[in-house]
């Protein structure tokens, strides 16, 4: 075997293990030792790591092209089946099983799926039709995809959608009292109870109030628009597309504020972190905050409030951080 291939295999083994959740400090120390053993190790590892990172944008590829089957409903496909079973020698059982699952890939029956994220979670779901849904923190979402229609229920939280336009197959997002119908586009939907916020980056969507029967008012939302539906009214705010994109910075783990009140900022941090912030003092609540923050780093934000604004931070009995002057 060639030395370089052997080294590359070792580097790949380290790299793979480093990406696993059980990677420990001891593992890291072992990797550092291995790297320090020789520059050949460093060259091989850095090279592989770099090449592997170059492929990180796979996530931006449309799922249709790469044909990834959705979660949970998927049974192991045939070749996995074959190898797994060859190993276990349960051949008789295997044929029955393979026989059972061989239904056509695009069945007329809708396939139902449910997805969720925990506090601070972020997850990308490729749908079978090629569309993608990106879930923000604390989100619950269900999908139903068939050949002639695609439905998504946003039960709570926020999601960003990249919808592939398919003739005669509407894509509809149900967010409580609002129904959002889509023609190939990119937009996000956020749900806080009955308040529904729709921000459109590309394309056009139609927002309908489903609580008022047939004669319900529909609102068309264009790129750069943010529609906020609450009760009977749907308000549309036109903004530069860049401002709409700011509301989507959660997609790369950042929060961006332009002169938002501390109350709003704290509420946003609270969506992403178990450590909750509590603002009770009205003079503190009115402080305006601008800047970009890492959504998960509430500690750094609190430190900034202490140092830059001279605010007091106390731990309450129920474990919240209370900010006061």
């Amino acid at each position, binding site marked *: *075997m*060639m*030395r*370089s*291939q*052997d*080294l*590359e*295999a*070792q580097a*790949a*083994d380290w*790299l*793979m*293990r480093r*990406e*696993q*959740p*059980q990677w420990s400090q*001891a*593992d890291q120390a*072992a990797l550092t030792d291995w790297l320090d053993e*020789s*520059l*050949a190790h*460093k*060259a*091989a590892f*850095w*090279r*592989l790591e*770099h*090449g*592997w990172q*170059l*492929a*990180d*944008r*796979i*996530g*931006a*590829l449309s*799922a249709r092209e*790469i044909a*990834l089957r959705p*979660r949970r409903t*998927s*049974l*192991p*496909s045939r*070749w*996995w*089946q074959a*190898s*797994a079973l060859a*190993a276990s020698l349960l051949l008789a059982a295997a044929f029955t099983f393979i026989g059972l699952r061989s239904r056509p890939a695009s069945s007329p029956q809708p396939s139902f799926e449910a997805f969720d994220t925990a506090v601070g979670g972020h*997850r*990308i*779901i*490729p749908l079978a039709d090629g569309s993608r849904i990106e879930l923000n923190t604390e989100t619950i979402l269900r999908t139903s995809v068939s050949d002639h229609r695609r439905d998504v229920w946003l039960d709570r939280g926020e999601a960003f959608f990249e919808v592939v336009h398919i003739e005669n197959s509407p894509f509809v997002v149900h967010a409580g009292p609002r129904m959002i119908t889509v023609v190939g586009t990119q937009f996000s939907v956020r749900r806080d109870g009955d308040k529904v916020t729709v921000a459109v980056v590309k394309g056009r969507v139609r927002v309908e109030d489903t609580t008022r029967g047939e004669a319900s008012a529909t609102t068309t939302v264009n790129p750069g628009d943010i529609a906020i539906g609450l009760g009977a009214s749907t308000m549309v705010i036109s903004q530069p597309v860049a401002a709409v994109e700011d509301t989507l910075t959660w997609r790369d783990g950042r929060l961006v504020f332009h002169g938002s009140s501390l109350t709003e900022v704290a509420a946003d941090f609270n969506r992403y972190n178990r450590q909750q912030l509590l603002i009770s003092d009205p003079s503190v609540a009115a402080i305006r905050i601008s800047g970009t923050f890492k959504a998960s780093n509430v500690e750094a934000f609190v430190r900034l409030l202490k140092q830059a604004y001279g605010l007091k931070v106390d731990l309450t009995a129920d474990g919240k951080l209370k900010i006061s002057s």
Partner: protein
Amino acid sequence: MVDDQELKEWFCREVLPLERSLSAFIRRNWRDAADVLDLRQDIYERVLQGARQALPAQAGKFVYTVARNHLINRAKRARIVSFEAVVDLDATSGSDVLEPERQLLAREELRRIELGLEKLPPRCREVVLLRKIRGLSTRETADELGVGIDTVEKQMTLGMRALANFMLGGSAKVQRSGVPGLLARRPAR
């Protein structure tokens, strides 16, 4: 002495984009194509060794010089390589400085990733996609696909190598080399 972080950044930014042209250079100047990957690995090692003292101002020239010297030394030691090869190599100096891979546009880069994925065997591809898109661990991938974790780990490392090689300008060929000796040294899981 350049610290590791700086050395690594320089290596990724300045040296690795030369990989395709460096590989072509080695192939042109070495009789046995089977040696190319080993030679390239040796050259990278020597490049790091040199750059560790002080980062060279012109990476392309530096890598080329290291590559050329290494090939000449190897040729002299090997003796089986014809003398012409070495003469040839000397003659090319100056005109044959390595060119970095052109920076890909975002769309081309995606296309490239897609191509690389297409070239992977289906098992590798599925494991790689579950990792890159859904962020699944090998354990979760094994559960999802209903196969053993060892199978997933094997496909994962093969997929990583093939895709990384392709992204650096190679052919995305899956190299099925095992890792003897490595299993013994890794900490228990």
